[in-house]
């Protein structure tokens, strides 16, 4: 059983404080969903946790099983079990997915076969596995390719940044089912960032966190999604903004 604890996290991007004291704690096997309006800091959280260049941590702590990961390089954070499935994963011309995964430390035993199975499970054309990482892929294909990497690398905690955008309903269902399976298969903790409720139809959340203006302003069970659906984010906005 692993624990991810984010406490008082403040992050600045391009000279502007975007996360203003973010708190969240979760365990292996749980599904936590972060919902919030555009610009509330959801994606900033994911990028800051993965150590993206340009994201400056001003204060706070992020621990996996007691280890402060903010002190670690992006590589070491990944090797401590943190994975980010990106909204806009980068193209890496000339590099094949299998070579990326081998360099990332994937077990080479039956690797190609396992990649094929994982691609099929999220309805990704398997030809994509023989091309270069994300090159000439549609937005939806990139999301699914990220899922293949996630499933091979089996992180302790998977962050998914807007995984549902660019996916049609069928593909979204396949991705949600794959994530749901991951929570039991290797007890993966899932931290999903989304605008939409659709993802939650097949991926039952343990907790939902509503984020506005860089902080968690409400936390609750799956029923919170219904409140958001009915009332929008307006009731959750801080009074002073």
């Amino acid at each position: 059983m692993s624990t991810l604890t984010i406490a008082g996290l403040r992050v600045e991007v391009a000279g502007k404080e975007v996360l203003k004291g973010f708190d969240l704690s979760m365990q292996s096997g749980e599904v936590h969903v972060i919902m919030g309006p555009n610009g509330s800091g959801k994606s900033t959280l994911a990028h800051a946790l993965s150590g993206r260049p340009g994201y400056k941590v001003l204060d706070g702590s992020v621990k996996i099983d007691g280890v402060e990961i903010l002190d670690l390089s992006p590589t070491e954070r990944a090797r401590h079990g943190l994975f980010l499935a990106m909204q806009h994963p980068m193209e890496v011309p000339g590099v094949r997915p299998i070579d990326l995964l081998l360099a990332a430390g994937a077990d080479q035993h039956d690797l190609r076969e396992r990649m094929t199975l994982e691609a099929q499970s999220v309805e990704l054309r398997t030809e994509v596995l023989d091309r270069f990482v994300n090159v000439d892929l549609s937005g939806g294909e990139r999301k699914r390719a990220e899922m293949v990497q996630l499933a091979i690398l089996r992180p302790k905690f998977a962050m998914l940044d807007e995984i549902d955008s660019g996916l049609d309903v069928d593909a979204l269902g396949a991705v949600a089912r794959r994530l749901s399976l991951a929570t039991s298969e290797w007890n993966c903790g899932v931290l999903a960032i989304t605008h939409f409720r659709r993802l939650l139809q097949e991926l039952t959340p343990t907790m939902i966190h509503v984020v506005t203006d860089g902080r968690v302003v409400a936390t609750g069970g799956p029923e919170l999604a219904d409140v958001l659906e009915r009332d929008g984010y307006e009731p959750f906005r801080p009074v002073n903004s």
Partner: protein
Amino acid sequence: MKIFADSALSFISERPDATERSRAWSIFETLGLPTTSDEVWRYAPLGDLDLDRFAIALVPSGGVDSAFARELRDRAGLVVRVVDGYYESSSSLPEGVTVEVATRVGSLSGETMLSRYESDTFAILNDALAPSTTVIRVANDVHVALPIVVLNTTSGAASFSRTQIILGRGSSATVVEYFEGGHNALVVPLSEYQIGDNASLQLVTYQRLDASAWHVARTTGFLHRDARLHQAVIGMGAHYNRSRNDAELLGTGSENELRTTFMGSDAQVHDLRTHQFHKAARTHSTLLSKGAVAGESRCVYTGLIEIEKGAKRTDARQTNHNLLLSPHAHADSVPNLDIRENDVMCAHASSVGPLDELQLWYLESRGVTRRDAQRLIIQGFFYEMLTTLPSDLAALVESDVTSALALLKVDE
């Protein structure tokens, strides 16, 4: 002490064509070495070039083939061995192929060497000092199945090799001109290719000289009607690597593809020049040059596309991308166009920059170490350069280039 001049004059005096050679030598003496105020040489570290460090090789001295050279030999249908510029031997000839060692031949352009290369000091030195010209001919309509490898090995002297490859109409061949050795040497090869009507030459110019060598090379292709010249130039070695690769598209429908790959480390200088000269209608040229410079190395790419009046529907493209792997490395890219015909397609693009931070972070965020992320991206950058190599050589060259790339140090 005038070691270079003394050894050159003694070399020339023993040659049957000493008169012609002396004429070239005296032109060299008049011209002298170029200086960096000469535009064509402005990036060369000519201040460091002291010709008297080199004596002309009066006899070939040989050397042991590297493991890579042995691998190349194993894949060849014909091995032509040239040592210190001296033709030494050929393996048994495939049908339709001849190898001739010519004492004095003119340029394949039809001009004398002196009028063809009148302003090029090093080409004139080659005319004076190349022991002979190795002329490889492929007869009309002959398709040579296995690669022809011209294996140039060089000891620590000044050597001047000259090669001509002549493909008869409708023929095809793959040729590798390979250079190794050259510790503290001056290596000045000059090659010309004549590709007959509808003939096809796949050429790999592979320079793997010692890091102390001065290498000043020039190649020119003459392409006749519907001829194809696909040339890959790979420059890995030498302290100063000058590589000038020209093509004259003389015949309608002829096509030239040139891919130049190089990598620099320490204080290496790669000085690449190209001239794609379109003289006939419906001619195509595609040029892609990619390099990576690490340490304090430098590279310059200067390319000219020239399109003559009347060369209608010519399509010429020139692309140059450079990776900077150190803040102390430097790359220049100087594309030039000279177009005297309206009905043409012409494009050029170039870029110079470090490894992409976001690509690096993306790989790191999967658990790839920074060093491996750099290696993967650098290999990926060069990947397309290796995809068009002749298939029987691709794996060998790819693994050689990949291991050289793995040694490049990235300084941040």
